[in-house]
């Protein structure tokens, strides 16, 4: 809808697997954890580099739906990376409760 208003957009996306069903105009795919797409707290250098990489797709992408996989690596292993909320989200809590009842 933003594109239809005549504005070029790029999605900084941690889940590029969604692209076939979403059909975003441009996707900059990044292997960062949920909640910190641009990088770690206080890491201005990475945040700036990620923003710059996403922005550059506004210029470089020539065909609708292009996906570029960005080269950034998260410094922690997934198991050591905390991104989930302190308390389970309402829908997760509901599912856990339903499982316990089974």
């Amino acid at each position, binding site marked *: *809808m*933003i*594109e*239809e*208003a*005549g*504005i*070029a*957009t*790029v*999605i*900084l*996306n*941690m*889940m*590029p*697997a*969604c692209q*076939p*069903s*979403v*059909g*975003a*105009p441009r996707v900059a*795919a990044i*292997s960062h*954890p*949920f*909640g*910190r*797409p*641009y*990088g*770690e*707290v*206080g890491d*201005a250098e990475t*945040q*700036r580099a*990620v*923003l*710059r990489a996403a*922005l550059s797709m*506004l*210029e470089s992408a020539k065909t*609708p*739906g292009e996906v570029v*996989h*960005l*080269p950034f690596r998260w410094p922690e292993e997934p198991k050591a*990376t*905390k*991104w*989930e*909320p*302190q308390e389970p*989200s*309402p*829908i997760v809590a*509901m599912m856990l409760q339903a499982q316990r009842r089974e």
Partner: protein
Amino acid sequence: MTKIPEVDSWRFLPPRLARLLQARLEASPPATVIPFTPLPVPLSRARIALLSTAGISCPPDPPFDMESERANPMWGDPSWRRIPATATGADVEVNHLHIDTSYAKRDLNVVLPTQRLAELVAAGEIGSVAPSHYSVMGFQLDQSQQLAESAPAIAASMKAEGVQGAVLAPV
């Protein structure tokens, strides 16, 4: 030259949640139309806005509604907020029940890099920052209201402020 590996969408997800989301994705129909608007000017002259799905609000605007989601776990607040481009972490609230929001509260730039964008403008890499950035709250099982109301309102606001390019970052 080393080849850049493809991003693994499931890397940070617990296996059960990954399977659940994978099944949901496989059941989704493929997109049929992909919109595409070229950037009308080079980046060094373009006006840019940012959008985050982190549930950011700027008082006195009301925060995203978490209480209604607690009462109805299938519902997510579909509204949107304007974030002044000059806002820093001290000026905003972050409400989203599906991620650890403490990182965004400590450094807004991890989800909405307002300071980083201002730096790129100061360095001459980007033309200008739009007066407003935007946030929605990303947990939307039913996207109809967000698509019918928030998306066109955000698009119209961007248009009114002369935005030429936007970076959208789901969290």
